[in-house]
């Protein structure tokens, strides 16, 4: 026992931190499966009614076949135990709405959402940090007021409405954006490597497909980014204002350093910690909250999959999505903590 303890403390701090977080993450995932399993059971409604046609749902033989195929004929504890047993083997069960393994569905839909959310995150970071810095530098001036209005609008505008208006203006009226979907109608997807079309087309040198994929992702990513731009702008502004009032910034200015260096090197770095935190949270939120944008832009991602699964009471799919979202949050939070430590040397992991 003491050997284990000695070995544990002999590990580098960073590795100990990662291992501990991974262990807690596994427990959290287990908790998520249990909660989502219980919730799917207590929700009123029978998957039989939601998935079979009117006639079929009234036929006891067909209903029995359906229940048996999806393991719904077993007692609840046994269903959950079987689920965990298969989960360990990487099997999330079969979706009642797509008749395919949930892992296959997630492998298809999750990359589409990650691709969209990543593009949105890049846009949100570029615009959010830039606007936040400008607002802090021009505190209480007209740029600050204008940016405050923009960021407030960003967090206030309903996403569904914004998505429709964006599509109407840029696609329908101006004709400078393509229509819905990840590619043009009937367009051939690049060979599947990551199932993210922009990445896969780049990796395989399919430039025409890359151009199409990029053009299709711009509008939905912009819409998805708007809310996060607002929050990143506000956090950046607040963090920058705090930094700009610190002694070391005054010292830097007193030394006669150029203002650009003072802001980008001295004030910005401590502010980045707060920005990374909010960006991490926002990325998780984006991944799990894309359903409205995906719906308007016909983006076949995990948001639409989750929504349809919920409507169809597709228990295995709901649990699969819940688990994946939980894993994403855990990984993103861990990544944020690691980046936090890299940015701020005062933070010690372990």
């Amino acid at each position, binding site marked *: 026992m003491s050997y284990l303890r000695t070995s544990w403390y002999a590990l580098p701090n960073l590795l100990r931190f990662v291992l501990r977080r991974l262990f807690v993450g596994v427990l959290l995932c287990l908790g998520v499966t249990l909660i989502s399993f219980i919730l799917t059971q207590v*929700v009123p409604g029978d998957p039989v*009614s939601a998935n079979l046609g009117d006639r079929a749902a009234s036929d006891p033989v067909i209903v029995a076949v359906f229940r048996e195929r999806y393991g719904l004929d077993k007692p609840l504890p046994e269903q959950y135990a079987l689920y965990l047993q298969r989960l360990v083997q990487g099997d999330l069960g079969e979706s009642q709405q797509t008749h395919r393994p949930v892992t296959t569905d997630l492998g298809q839909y999750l990359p589409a959402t990650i691709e969209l959310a990543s593009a949105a995150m890049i846009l949100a970071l570029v615009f959010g940090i830039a606007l936040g810095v*400008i607002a802090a530098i021009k505190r209480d001036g007209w740029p600050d007021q204008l940016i405050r209005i923009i960021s407030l609008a960003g967090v206030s505008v309903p996403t569904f409405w914004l998505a429709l208006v964006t599509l109407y203006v840029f696609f329908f009226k101006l004709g*400078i*954006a393509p229509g819905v979907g990840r590619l043009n109608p009937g367009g051939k997807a690049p060979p599947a490597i990551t199932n993210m079309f922009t990445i896969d087309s780049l990796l395989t040198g399919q430039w025409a497909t890359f151009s199409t994929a990029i053009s299709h992702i711009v509008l939905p990513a912009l819409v998805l980014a708007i809310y996060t731009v607002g929050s990143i702008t506000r956090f950046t502004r607040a963090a920058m204002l705090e930094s700009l009032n610190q002694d070391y910034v005054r010292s830097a200015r007193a030394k006669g350093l150029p203002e650009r260096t003072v802001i980008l090197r001295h004030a910005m770095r401590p502010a980045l910690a707060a920005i990374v935190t909010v960006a991490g949270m926002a990325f998780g939120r984006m991944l799990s909250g894309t359903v409205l944008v995906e719906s308007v832009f016909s983006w*076949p991602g995990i948001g639409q999959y989750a929504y349809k699964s919920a409507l169809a009471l597709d228990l295995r799919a709901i649990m699969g999505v819940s688990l994946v979202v939980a894993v994403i949050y855990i990984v993103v939070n861990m990544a944020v903590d690691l980046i936090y430590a890299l940015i701020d040397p005062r933070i010690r992991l372990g």
Partner: protein
Amino acid sequence: MMDARRVSRLLSVGMAAALASSALMPIAQAMAQDAGTLVVDTAFQLKTADPAREFEPTANLILHPVYETLVTFKGSDLTKVEPSLSEAPVVSADAKTFTFQLNPAAKFSDGSPVTVDDVIFSLNRVKNVKGSPSFLLDGVTVSKGSKEGEVVLTTEQPDPGLPYKLANPAVGIVNAKVVTANQGSAAADADKTDRADAFFATTSVGSGPYVLEKFDMAAEVVLKRNDAYWGEKPKYEQIVIRNVETSAQQMNVMRDDSQIALDLRPDQLDAIKDAAYTISVPSADVVFMFTNSNADISPVAANSDFQTAVRLAIDYDGIVNIAGEGAVRPGSIIPTMFAGSLPTSEGPTRDVEAAKAALAKSGIKDPTIELTYVSDITKNGVSFADVAAKMQSDLKDVGITATLKPSPVSTFLDDYRAGTLPFTIVWWGPDFPDPSDYLLFGPGEKVGLRAGWKAGSSPAITEIAKKAAVEIDQTTRTKLYDEWQKKLNAEGPFTGLFQPAFSMASSKTLEPVEYNAMWTIDLTAISPAKQ
């Protein structure tokens, strides 16, 4: 300040990058404009590409061009079956034996001929995988006929409606050898052994004018012309059916990003009618109401005079107005486009005084009743909440207080099927286009029981239904269904409210497109506009 300008420059670079990406659009769009490709937008209701397991509208739309059936329908006419893989069947006098003669020219997309064995395999597979469409072949036995290329279907009970069921894409004929080689089975235990549904999503094994090129249930389905097709070649080389929400469909057609939009609301058609052909016609779904005849569920609803009062209190024209342009009211429960439907004039009409009199006769003072409706979906854009509110207002005029009870569809269906709703608005989509599908509304039948209408409640109605179920003479059959529905209107708990409109738009670069209640539109019949 210098730094603000720098940051602004950074910002500009970011925006320029985004706009540069947008500038690629014309290139992308140019790639999409391929004259040989037809793009159809619809909001997918799709679960599988396996005909034996599908029973969703989008699956019918997509699989109809891929899997031919023994018989089919032409255009929008669902009252007459037409030859397809077989000639129209020879029906025995007792409506229990149906003989089909296969067309010897018919062949699958791989060039192999469509044989009697393929038909037997395909139909038995539909029965035995015990999926949603299995009921279509309940009690049906399929066997070889005495002649070459002859298939004989026999039924346990007389079933003159069987040929209409056999036009459903769910009973499309598949290549037995290929399906068997890919985990398919038509054996009695196919519900446990058949695992071919995954295979059907990767390829197609039918004899139709198109083959499946891509099947993505979330994004799009691509059909490619079957170059080995044995019949008349379709006009388009490729058809892309995309999963697009209603809100974007209108824009897509107007910008020629797609040529057909299938899920528009009637109110969207005005904006588009100059730019595209529009259709707003009654769909085959019937929205109806019932007051539960089971006194254990609600003594108020079960009172026959109360039921009469409700029937006479409703402003049916007002409800059809809510449903919008293109919606109609059926005379009873069978939709207007099917053989055996009653004219609208045969349905009850609003008569406030008569309703009050019926209510007085019921002996129930100041009745209150719960009106349950589905709150989270609409029917072709018509909100059940709007219809329920209108009914509540109409009932108030005669002294009936209806308490509105919204319910999510998943829980509603359970309650409805369990027969526990006292008063509700619900819909019935046809399983097959024959009036026999509606005999389920009779006393003691499946839908009748949901309204608490027990067997033996109305022997006269049951008697007519029995005759109508076995009658094969079309004229006599129609008369029997007329009579059955008139009695249903007078004595039953059901009242047809409306058939919501099916509204679609198609580009003027196409010849006008017809609506078909079975597969929405016939993709194989669409052709470019004549110059």
